């Protein structure tokens, strides 16, 4: 078959008029003097453009990006398609089939990356040297303590605190703990990387006994034992990086929060379990800790009605407080010795008295 066409090869925007001859597997291009100037077979051509009527097709050549051969005649697409089957296919390959293949690959990438990020929190904290974690955590803890109201460290109270810490860690001596009390009215405590634990004075003031404080401390030690802070940071960064490849920052932010919530609650439960073991081996009753959770639970239900509290607890970083209180009460203990003397407990309670007013 012999068809006329316009030819471009990147040397000019002016068309050269040519004739194209299809025969067997060969495609030969002839100039106006009827001289063949090419050496192509059928497979050398790709479809670059086709109009919707089948009256125009633009062919390109594999490996020669600048070349275009433009055919225009009624029904030319099916005609040339008789020789070059690729001409009947889609231009650019952005049809449903191509999209399905690409998407399948993308889902694969998402799965592999997702599993990798999931595993990251098990790998990274173990790789960080203890010294590094300790320095990092100490800097953070000191910064927060400074920000929140300063450290309380009256001599007798500090001694009582260290006595309590020593009692709780006697079976976990590998833990290099640094516990400090911050002059802040909130009833709270947190564990930072590298054994950095911060107790709020408000928690000590509200506690009905030294055992209750010891219970909370045991819970924070649980976090330290499993490097929960480091795992939390790793997970958060991992999810941030993973999430940043997706569009729609609001949606990814919501999913990120949900994932982090789920994880942090499982870490809280884990720390509660360890707290029970630590308390039992230190001969301290976990029941006062139940009292602490009861108070938190009461505060929760005072703020909002019960239904709202249930919704709120679904979005909370911690499990439901009354469930945790129940766990502590059920744990019980064998022998029990007081953790501090009356005088020591008083000293701990008045630890922040000499500090500057908050």
């Amino acid at each position: 078959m012999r068809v006329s066409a316009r030819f471009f090869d990147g040397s000019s925007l002016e068309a050269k008029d040519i004739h194209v001859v299809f025969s067997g597997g060969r495609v030969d291009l002839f100039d106006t003097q009827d001289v063949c100037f090419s050496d192509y077979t059928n497979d050398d051509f790709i479809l670059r453009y086709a109009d919707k009527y089948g009256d125009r097709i633009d062919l390109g050549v594999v490996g020669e990006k600048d070349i275009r051969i433009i055919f225009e005649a009624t029904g030319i697409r099916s005609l040339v398609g008789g020789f070059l089957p690729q001409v009947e296919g889609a231009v650019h390959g952005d049809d449903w089939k191509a999209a399905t293949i690409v998407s399948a690959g993308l889902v694969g990438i998402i799965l592999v990356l997702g599993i990798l990020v999931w595993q990251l929190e098990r790998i990274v904290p173990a790789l960080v040297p203890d010294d590094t974690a300790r320095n990092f955590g100490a800097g953070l803890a000191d910064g927060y303590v400074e920000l929140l109201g300063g450290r309380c460290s009256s001599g007798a109270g500090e001694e009582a605190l260290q006595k309590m810490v020593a009692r709780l860690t006697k079976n976990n001596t590998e833990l290099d703990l640094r516990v400090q009390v911050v002059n802040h009215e909130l009833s709270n405590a947190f564990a930072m990387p590298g054994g950095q634990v911060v107790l709020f004075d408000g928690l000590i003031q509200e506690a009905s006994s030294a055992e209750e404080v010891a219970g909370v401390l045991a819970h924070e030690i649980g976090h330290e034992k499993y490097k929960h802070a480091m795992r939390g940071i790793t997970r958060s960064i991992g999810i941030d990086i993973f999430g940043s490849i997706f569009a729609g920052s609001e949606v990814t932010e919501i999913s990120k929060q949900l994932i982090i919530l789920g994880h942090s609650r499982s870490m809280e439960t884990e720390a509660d379990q360890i707290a029970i073991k630590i308390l039992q081996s230190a001969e301290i009753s976990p029941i006062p800790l139940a009292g602490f959770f009861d108070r938190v639970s009461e505060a929760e239900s005072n703020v909002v009605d019960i239904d709202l509290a249930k919704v709120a607890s679904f979005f909370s970083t911690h499990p439901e407080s009354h469930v945790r209180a129940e766990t502590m009460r059920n744990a019980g203990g064998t022998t029990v010795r007081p953790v501090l003397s009356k005088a020591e407990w008083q000293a701990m309670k008045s630890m922040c008295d000499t500090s500057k007013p908050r």
Partner: protein
Amino acid sequence: MSFTDIADGTGTPKNQNETDQSNLRKDVEDFEFTGEASEMWPIILKNLVFNVLTLSLYRFWGRTSIRNYIWKNVRFKGDPLEYLGTGAELFTGFIIALFVIFLPLLGIGFWGQTLLLQGSGFGVLFILIAYMTLLFLLPLGIFRAQKYRLSRTRWRGIRGALIGNGVDYASATLGYYLLIGLTGGLAYPYVENKLWGKMTNKTRFGDGEFSYNAPSGPLYGGFLVYFGMSLIGIVLFFMISGVSTMSASGGTPTVAISSFFFGYLTLILCMGFGYAVYLHRQLVHFWGNMKYQNCHFGFKGGLGDMIKLYVGNAFLFTVTLGLAYPITQMRFARYVMQSLKMYGDLDLTAIAQTSEEEPSYGEGLAEGFDMGTI
């Protein structure tokens, strides 16, 4: 080997191929746009399906499909543009920019915050560096995206190009935007004009050069209208909503709220109209003073048509919750292509392929900033 002479597809042997071709290639405007919303919707829906399935990762391929469609429906002298970019190029560009630029910057910013928390003043420096770099990367991203798109745009086998790496463009932009701030916004038309010129003068098609050297003076008429309409809008806003505040002591809250609403609507309409006048002047000025080789362009689109286009686009975008975004882009492309004229005798034989290198990956920076490019 037997030759069958065919030109019109009916199988009739003939020798006058040339006449047959010219029948098909009717009298053509220099610029035409042939795209239809009805053909765009299936592409949009396909993209939507695969974006949902891939949690949005398909967007690079989706955008490529949209570009393919818009490009091939732009015709110059009867021949369509081709878009040769691929989704994989956009995806790779994005991943590279993410890991080489954005995440490290995020890390520097995060580290700065940690240092600040630990009481070290160096934290401020870190955060400042991160922010300054981002400010610089924004115009650089615009330039690089344009460079990629031009390099992937072909017409009759020849492609476009943007010269250079964009560093000077980005630094100039930073300086210009500082100028806008220092002049309380008065330098805005001047800056836009300068930036359009900077970009245009680096633009090539094949080895032919685009150029733009028009002064910014003619833009200030439109800018004055924008400024005046904004002032009028503010005055009207206070008059309409202020009347109700005075009567509010005796009137009802409903009256106060509705008059505030109408006052606000008046303000938006005034400002919108003023801005449209400026934008239209800018289109006419920018395109009308642009040259390619020895030819110059003209922009014949009317202000009324442009306002209709923008109102229609805003409506389309809103009722489809943004899904019709590519269609609003296509409508804009149609308006520009129908308005664009070219004057002078373009010597087509004199233009050959550009020697400027093609960037290997696309638009990572721009994607990182979430710029709404098509």
